[in-house]
Every structure is written in C-alpha cells, then in structure tokens.
C-alpha cells in the first residue's frame, strides 16, 4: 500500500476496546513511575546515567565478564552452555530436557524465550510447557502474543479473560472479578507446578563476580516453579551481565520503579547453583544457557547502546505511538521504542521487514527521558533510518515524500513553492483522485498554508538588526 507503513495500518485497525486498554495501562504506568522515582530520589537522572555507564562498561568488556561469569557458575556446580543462534538455544534446551526425560515443565516469564519461540518448539517436541506468569498463562491459553514487556496482557480486559477461562476449562463458570480470576489461576497452576519435572526461567541480571542470576517476579511464579522440581534451566541473553553484586543496588532500585512503580519487585531471587545440601526443595541440577542470537552483531553496530536495556517497559508506557498502536503493531516480542530499535537489529537478516519501525516515532524524546539506563533511543532511531536509506530499502512514504525532498533541496524551487502553497488552501486536495496523496492525507490534517511568511519575517528582522549594528558602531 502506497503511503502507509505496516505499523500505521495496525494502528488504524486496532479496536477501540483494545486501544482503551493499552492507553489506560500505559499511562498509569508512566504516572506511577514518575511519582515513586521522584519521591524517593532528589536526582533520579544521576542514577539513570550511572546505570547506563555501568552497562556500557560491561558491554565494552563483555568478553572478560562473560568468561568470569562462566567460571563462577562452573565452580559452583552449574552447567554452562552457549547458544549462538535461536536454533542452537532451542536444541540445547531440548537436549537437556530429553536427557532428564522431562515431559512436563513450567516456565516463568522470559523475553529471551519469547524471542526464540521456545514454547511452541517444546510443545511440538512433545513436552508440556506451561507459562506460569498470570498474564503469560492467559496469552498461552488464547494462543496470543504478549503486547508489553512487563504487562503482557495490557491489551486485554477482564471480560475476555473470563471467557477464555471458561472456554479452556480453567473455570467451570463465567466470572470476571479479577480476584476470582487470580484465585482460579492459583489453583490450576499449583497442580501444574507440583507435577512438573523441570522449570525454565530467564534472568534479569547476571553478576559476573559471583555468577548469581537474579530473577524478579511479583507473583512468585518462578519461585514456585523451581521449588518442587529437580531441574532448572535459565536462558540468559549475554547482555544481562553486570560486573558485580554491588551494582545490583543501582539496577534493582531502578527496575522496580521504572517497570511498575514499585521500590522493589516482590520476589527477587539470587541463584548460583543447585539447592543446598540441607534444603529439601529445589533443583538438584542447574543449567545456564547463554544466548547470543544477534546480540554480538548489535554490539558491533553503531546502535550498541540498546544492549543496555533492562526490559522495564517504561519507554513503551510513555510512547505516544505505542499507546495508539499497541505492542502488536511492532510484530516481535519487543514493542514500543525498544522494539523499534531492537527488532531491526536483533533480527538483522530480516532488517528490511522491520525497517518501518524506526520511522514510527515522532522523535519526541520521552523514551530517553524515562529510560533507567539512559539509552539515547531517538538517536538510535535516526541511525536506523539512515541505515535503511543507505541500504535502499523501499519506504512507502518515499512516493508522497519525493516531491517534498526535491523542493527542500533547491532554494529556488522552495521559494516558488512557498509562494504557490497558498493556492493549496483553495484546492480540494481531499477529493483529488491521487491514491498516494489520499493515503497520506488520510492520516494527517494540514493546517492552512501561510507560505513565505517566515522568509518575510526573517528578512525584515535582518534589516532591523543591520540598522542596530550600524547605530551602535556609530555611537562608539
């Protein structure tokens, strides 16, 4: 379709109900974050900049930290694996599960697992793989995809969830009270935890010094998933590393506040080995799978700052485009500004497919202002637009914008066009039978043209200034 990017058509066809859910969820997230961060800290920006530079430092020395973490984990009896691609990761995990004859497992929320489509793969291979975060559980029942990093079902309301529970046999009758919905999930999932044979988790951070992986949840699902089972597999993106435990104070304080407006998330787990000899509950075996899947390519690119991301979702909440279009418009597990940068980079061989995303931004800069690790997202969006231009990736906007580009690069043509532009106020453009023009105007309202006024103003201002300069020189 000329003049319409894929993301625009998503935004246009989203239902009012879904858009209201996304807008409410996102804007309340932004308010809570602001309130908590500014009540607790005199200068939250200093903390954000510090977090950004700790992450930068780690990324710039990633090889040393990754090898330190590997050693720390191995010394504590953890089996460490490396996966260069999504397929490597899936096969590595499947091999571990097969070795332990696992047929049932629970999984706590992991963006990395979403990214490599782990769930459908394991299910195809005959392993029951149940999401245990309430939101992700509902997503799985609906065969849907998450539309927000922290609030996966931000696009759903209680009525839809109650219908899902009834349809899928989680509940015997329709009840859309959120407390009842939660109770029903509690009962259903406990039975699953207790009969599972393994638990797969992601990690929010990994400390290179102690090897401790840090997992935060509010629901306690990863804690419960791990307590009854003998096997724990953690899938960890290599960018999750931080140098040491003392740095966690910076990140944990920022993560909870940025993600959900909490000082700390309810459960923060620190794990660097199988359960203690004195403990009856918990895995006897722990595996860590380090995932690359394009991250080293991002590290080599001019957009490496995006690897600082701690997946809090604050940029999604604050983004005017995300709020209108929803996370699904971004067509990957990562929606909103973070997704607009990360998806085209991470899935580099499909860059053209995601090249419209960096354009879906007004460059208002709100995402940079809220980012807990101070990622210059608007700059990165521009770098990716530049990359698309250099790689000559066709843009639907190129057709209606081409005449503008010609005018804007020639002062003479521009002057003439400005004089002519007032005529546009009298032309019935909205009914002109030009398809690209119609698509373009369909999304925009043009103000009446005042062509040439700025040039006139600038000229008269220059004259006045020249006179002033002359006068002051004479007085000297």
């Amino acid at each position: 379709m000329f003049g319409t990017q894929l993301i625009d058509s998503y935004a246009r066809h989203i239902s009012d109900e879904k858009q209201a859910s996304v807008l409410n969820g996102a804007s309340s997230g932004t308010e809570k974050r602001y309130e908590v961060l500014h009540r607790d800290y005199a200068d939250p920006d200093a903390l954000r900049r510090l977090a950004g530079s700790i992450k930068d430092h780690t990324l710039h020395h990633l090889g040393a930290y990754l090898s330190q973490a590997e050693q720390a984990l191995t010394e504590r009896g953890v089996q460490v694996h490396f996966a260069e691609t999504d397929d490597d990761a899936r096969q590595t995990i499947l091999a571990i599960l097969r070795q332990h004859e696992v047929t049932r497992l629970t999984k706590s929320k992991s963006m990395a697992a979403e990214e490599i489509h782990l769930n459908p793969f394991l299910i195809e291979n005959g392993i029951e793989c149940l999401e245990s975060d309430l939101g992700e559980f509902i997503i799985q029942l609906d065969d849907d995809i998450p539309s927000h990093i922290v609030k996966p079902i931000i696009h759903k309301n209680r009525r839809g969830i109650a219908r899902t529970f009834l349809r899928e046999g989680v509940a015997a009758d329709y009840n859309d009270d959120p407390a009842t919905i939660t109770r029903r999930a509690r009962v259903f999932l406990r039975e699953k935890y207790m009969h599972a044979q393994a638990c797969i988790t992601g990690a929010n951070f990994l400390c290179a010094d102690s090897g401790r992986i840090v997992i935060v949840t509010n629901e306690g699902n990863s804690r419960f998933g791990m307590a009854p089972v003998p096997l724990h597999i953690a899938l960890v993106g290599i960018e999750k590393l931080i140098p040491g435990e003392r740095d966690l104070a910076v990140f944990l304080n920022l993560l909870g506040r940025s993600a959900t407006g909490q000082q700390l998330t309810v459960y923060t787990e620190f794990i660097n080995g199988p359960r203690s000899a004195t403990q009856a509950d918990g895995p006897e075996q722990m595996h860590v799978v380090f995932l690359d899947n394009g991250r080293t390519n991002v590290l080599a690119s001019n957009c490496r700052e995006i690897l600082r991301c701690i997946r809090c979702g604050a940029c999604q909440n604050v983004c005017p485009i995300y709020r209108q279009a929803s996370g699904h418009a971004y067509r990957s597990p990562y929606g909103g500004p973070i997704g607009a940068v990360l998806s085209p980079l991470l899935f580099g061989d499909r860059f053209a497919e995601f090249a419209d995303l960096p354009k879906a931004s007004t460059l208002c800069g709100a995402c940079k202002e809220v980012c807990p690790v101070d990622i210059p997202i608007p700059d990165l969006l521009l770098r990716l637009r530049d990359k698309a231009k250099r790689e000559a990736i066709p843009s639907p906007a190129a057709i209606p914008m081409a005449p503008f580009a010609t005018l804007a690069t020639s002062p003479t043509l521009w002057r003439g066009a400005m004089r002519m532009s007032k005529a546009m106020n009298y032309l019935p453009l909205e009914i002109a039978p030009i398809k690209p023009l119609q698509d373009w105007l369909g999304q925009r309202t043009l103000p009446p043209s005042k062509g040439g006024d700025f040039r006139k103003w600038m000229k008269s201002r220059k004259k006045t200034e020249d006179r002033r300069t002359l006068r002051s020189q004479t007085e000297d």
Partner: protein
Amino acid sequence: MSRAAIFKKIEAATSALKNRTARPDHAATITDAAPRLEGLDLLEIFARNMAKVNGRTMRSVAELTAFLTSTGQRHGYCDPALYPHIGAPLAAAGLGIETEYDRSRYDDYQFGITRASGAIAESGTLILDDDGTSRRLAALSPWTHVAVLERAAIHRSIADALAAMGESPNIIWVTGPSKTADVEGILIEGVHGPGEQIALVL
C-alpha cells in the same frame, strides 16, 4: 562450538572500540531512598516500610496466635527448630502444628512458619536463604507465611544487604505478599505464593 564463535564475535566488536567506558566508582549510599530511611530505629523503619507493601510485623508469639485464631487459620507448618519457642505455644492454644511438610498435601497448610536470615529496613524486605529456610515450599504454598526474624539481622539499606549476601546458592528477597496487576492493572494479592506475609521479630 557456539562458545568459541560468541567469544570471537565479542572480541571483534569490542576491540574495535576507541573509547571503552571505565567502571564507574559510585558511593554505596547513592541508591539510598532518603524518605524511606527516615528514623533511627531499624525495626521501626522496617515495620513502616513493610506495612507500605501490605506486610505485617509482629513482636510476640501471643500476637501471632491472636491473629491466626481471629482469621480462622487453624492448621499449619512450623520449622522443627522453631517448635519449642513458637510451634509449641501455638499448639497449646489449640492450633494444629506439623513439623514435617508433606508435599502431597501442599494445599492443606493454612500457614507456614520458617526462619528469615535477614531483613532490609529501607524496603520492608525479608531475606530467606536455603540454609535458614527449612522448606522452600512451606514458605510458599500456605496462604500465610510467617518469617521469624532476629532483630539484629535487619540491614539498613538495599545496598547494605547486597554487601552482606553470603554464600548461599539460593537467596530470595520477599517484599510483601505475592501479587499481580496483570488484569486491568488491578492489584490482587496471593497469586501463587502467600496472600499474607508476616515478619515475627524476636
């Protein structure tokens, strides 16, 4: 195979960098949230912050007995090491106390009493670790979890607690009851873990 390839790619990407960021040296107090730390007594600060996340602090076994009785919780688990001081008085008050956790009856325990190895005043957080907690499941499956805490084990700040992490392979910080806001942003407590989180400080 993947390992060597990943390290090689990292090396290629980072060795080309002209300016590598040095490790920032920040003061440990930079993350202290001043308003949360107001006050002189750590227990008082802890109790205030724990109340903000809907947790309860109790100071005596009598107080716990009264709470459990008044909320109709009549049967639970108690860490055998805590039985003489806590389990026995509860049993004497007519409550059913088990010192063995039977995982086939994971829903039978209305409350679970286990030890906390520490706490954080700044955030109202309880610290549980594998060596101090008799059963992970007993601190998780009952509706009410009672963490027994020594007053001297309260750290002032999150940064202080991180500096004293110790060697346990499994540590968990618990800041209030299990909760979610996944459904329309409405706060619901008791999702998978406890709906009631109590610190019994002795």
